[in-house]
């Protein structure tokens, strides 16, 4: 009996202990779980911070778009090959970062024909904001966005007839008004948006690896210098004049043939000038020099009058340095890569004219058009064109034939003879 009792007693004690254990376990369980969730939260925060710091560290070191101002290490990140197709994204960031005193605005004739230099100004304070194929609507967005973000002392605006064409009006791939607004908004919004596009994106990380690979292959080269594309003019073509002939045919039979100006584009250009005035930025206007063969194409395509109207419209906004007529530079094909893209040496000359506001002694290159002298200058330019056509009857004939027949082979045969292989 007593044994039984004892044993029962034992069982009771066991049961009690078990119940106590369970109660204790139950009481401890939520606390234990709470601890687990706390571990999760601490781990999450630490790992997230680690990931973000790692990402920024990597992206800012490689800096594939060259917008953070980090060092360029030969063989590692010197050759920023990805800048080429993304200029609509990174140029505004680099511009904002550099805060230049002089800025060139314009299309490819700026982007890869015009080094970022201005006599009398430190090179580090000059920036090339050229955007390939930028027409006036798009340029006006960038111009306003850039000037809102930072006001340089001088904005040199290089213009082309085609920028005013009615064919071009939608911004190109890569343009983002939101980006321009954010950069112009405040340093904080600019930082966040720049981070978003150049750090916090798989695409940007991928571009970093591209840059590292390209830099390894070309440890001695750089792609852009303060916005200037140094690579395009170094490109080797099939034959020395191949690109020249190809572009002459293409522009002559398609682009210039279809050209008609859009009045809205002139209005937008007026808005650009108003914006600059409002923000106290001095604007230097000039017209890029295309090769004289293109000027013949204007004439053959019956666009010479439109070219004159274009110039008349520009001078309404102030004096314009016009390099786009038959002159010492535009007559010589050796100054050009193709009829619309001149060599950097040419731009150095016209930049000198722009900076001093005086023509170069002994060189017929540049006429300062004003409201007062425009008609006289246009007559002079027409005479120069007629002289050129008289001296080069084959060119005019070749362009007349191409316009009529659009026969590329016939054009090529004539062009090889007249222009060179």
């Amino acid at each position, binding site marked *: 009996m007593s044994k039984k009792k004892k044993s029962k007693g034992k069982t009771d004690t066991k049961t009690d202990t078990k119940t106590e254990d369970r109660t204790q376990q139950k009481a401890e369980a939520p606390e234990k779980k709470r601890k687990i969730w706390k571990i999760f939260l601490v781990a999450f925060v630490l790992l997230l911070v680690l*990931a973000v710091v790692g990402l920024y560290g990597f992206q800012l070191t490689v800096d594939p778009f060259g917008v953070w101002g980090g060092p360029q290490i030969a063989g590692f990140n010197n050759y920023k090959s990805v800048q080429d197709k993304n200029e609509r994204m990174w140029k505004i960031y680099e511009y904002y970062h550099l805060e230049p005193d002089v800025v060139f605005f314009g299309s490819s004739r700026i982007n890869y024909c015009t080094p970022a230099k201005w006599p009398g100004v430190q090179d580090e304070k000059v920036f090339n904001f050229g955007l390939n194929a930028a027409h006036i609507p798009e340029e006006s967005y960038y111009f306003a966005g850039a000037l809102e973000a930072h006001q340089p002392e001088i904005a040199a605006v290089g213009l082309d007839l085609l920028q005013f064409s009615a064919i071009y009006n939608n911004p190109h791939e890569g343009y983002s008004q939101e980006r321009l607004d954010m950069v112009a908004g405040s340093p904080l919004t600019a930082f966040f948006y720049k981070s978003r*596009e150049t750090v916090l994106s798989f695409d940007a990380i991928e571009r970093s690896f591209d840059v590292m690979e390209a830099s390894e292959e070309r440890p001695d080269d750089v792609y852009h210098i303060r916005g200037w594309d140094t690579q395009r003019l170094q490109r080797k073509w099939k034959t020395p004049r191949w690109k020249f002939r190809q572009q002459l045919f293409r522009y002559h039979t398609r682009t210039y043939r279809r050209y008609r100006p859009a009045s809205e584009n002139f209005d937008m250009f007026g808005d650009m000038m108003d914006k600059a005035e409002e923000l106290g930025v001095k604007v230097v206007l000039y017209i890029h020099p295309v090769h004289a063969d293109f000027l013949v194409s204007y004439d053959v395509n019956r666009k010479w009058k439109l070219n004159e109207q274009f110039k008349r419209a520009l001078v309404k906004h102030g004096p314009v340095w016009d390099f786009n007529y038959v002159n010492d530079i535009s007559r010589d094909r050796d100054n050009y890569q193709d009829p619309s893209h001149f060599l950097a040496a040419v731009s150095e000359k016209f930049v000198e004219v722009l900076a001093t506001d005086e023509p170069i002694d002994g060189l017929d290159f540049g006429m300062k058009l004003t409201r007062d002298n425009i008609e006289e200058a246009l007559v002079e330019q027409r005479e120069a064109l007629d002289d050129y056509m008289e001296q080069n009857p084959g060119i005019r004939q070749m362009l007349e034939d191409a316009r009529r027949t659009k026969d590329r082979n016939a054009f090529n045969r004539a062009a090889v003879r007249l222009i060179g292989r």
Partner: protein
Amino acid sequence: MLFNSYVFLFLFLPVVWILFRALSGFKLARGAMGLLAVASLVFYSYWNPPFVALILASVVFNFCWGRWLGRGDRKPRWKLAIGVGVNLASIAYFKYTGFLLENVNALTGAGIEIPEIFLPLGISFFTFQQIAYLVDCHRGLTKEHSFWQYCLFVTFFPQLIAGPIVHHSEMMPQFVGDNIRRISPRMLSLGITLLAIGLFKKVMIADTLSPWVAAVFDGQADPQLIAAWVGTLAYTFQIYFDFSGYSDMAMGLGYLFNVELPVNFASPYRATNAVEFWRRWHMTLSRFLRDYLYIPLGGNRKGPVRRYVNLMATMLLGGLWHGAAWTFVLWGGLHGLYLCAAHGWGKLSEKAGFRTPRVVGWLLTFVGVAFAWVFFRATSMERAWAVVKGMVGANGVEDVGATLANAENNGIVESLPFDERFAVLALLLVVCLVLPNSWTWAREKIERMPVLGAACAVILFVSAVLGMTRISEFLYFQF
């Protein structure tokens, strides 16, 4: 404002959360609740500020009407009818006017000018929630509550624009002092995890599939056999990962503010029949349709024929709820047929003592659901028909060998249309069938391995954020 936007993730959410925590830390539960309501209206107004007036008017009307409906013992049906009618009129005007007039014009040739009416975001969701509230007020199933509680029940930003469709009985009790006040590491952890998973599903999976879908459904050419199936299957996964991802994010956001939202998806593509599918897909909509449409119509209480009629009516209206177009009605109709067939087959096989193999049931259900998505996604009946024709091979079959050879010769990776895509789609199918639900993962797995869970959440979140910005390049061809 979308959950997968920078302004939401890095500005709105942190600011609101910090203010909410500050207020609840100072034991200002009402203030915290008010803050959430105001923040929700700001969230809504970000898209189109004037429509805040509409949602506010709707909230005030339904709150007052609900109170009036709930008063006294006698509850005349006309009061309810007016309340529901006002809500339906509002949604009918904004969502269905154009559709109605288009059809009147098509039938009568009347040539009535179709007005351009902007559809307020989330109107289908907040209208349905409030109709349910009015019905329950009429039934005497609601309790006393403040205007702010009610306002928050309708406008609570995590569920405002894309659901889940919440029920007042599950939401209002959560908007009380103690619940709002406490900081729960569990809730926070669940919130972060679900937000990360949802964001990843939306950005990295659904958005990646989007161009594949668009190529077939928005393209001009009639898709051939393989393209049509790739497009359809891609959409089948896109809509699941998009919608369930958004629901996960909504749940996660709810948890961050100590509010538990109902689960909306439970691995729907594992369903072995249509009935099960609707128990797993957009569960809160199914619940609403069942409680406030199917059952009031008589449900299955009035015999088998009436049951099928009720099912069809419910699904047709459910289809129309999704969008004002015949394609949506047809989609609903197809699902109605699937449900009738599932019920009918269930009865028949039960009588015959026959059991459908699960694999067969799953395959039929999956293909049926995918087929119905064609009508849901297509922008017109003509386009839907073109895709359906493609799926059965009526538009021809691609010469895969030639395409591959051509692509290889030209080095054009983009023109390899199917191999990689099939692999991705197969992987997604495995994910849908094998991996646990987001909320199962968040609730159970992470408790067992918190550090690994945190690492996964960080990877998913960071990947999703990195995937949110795509760089578009400009290829220069000169003027």
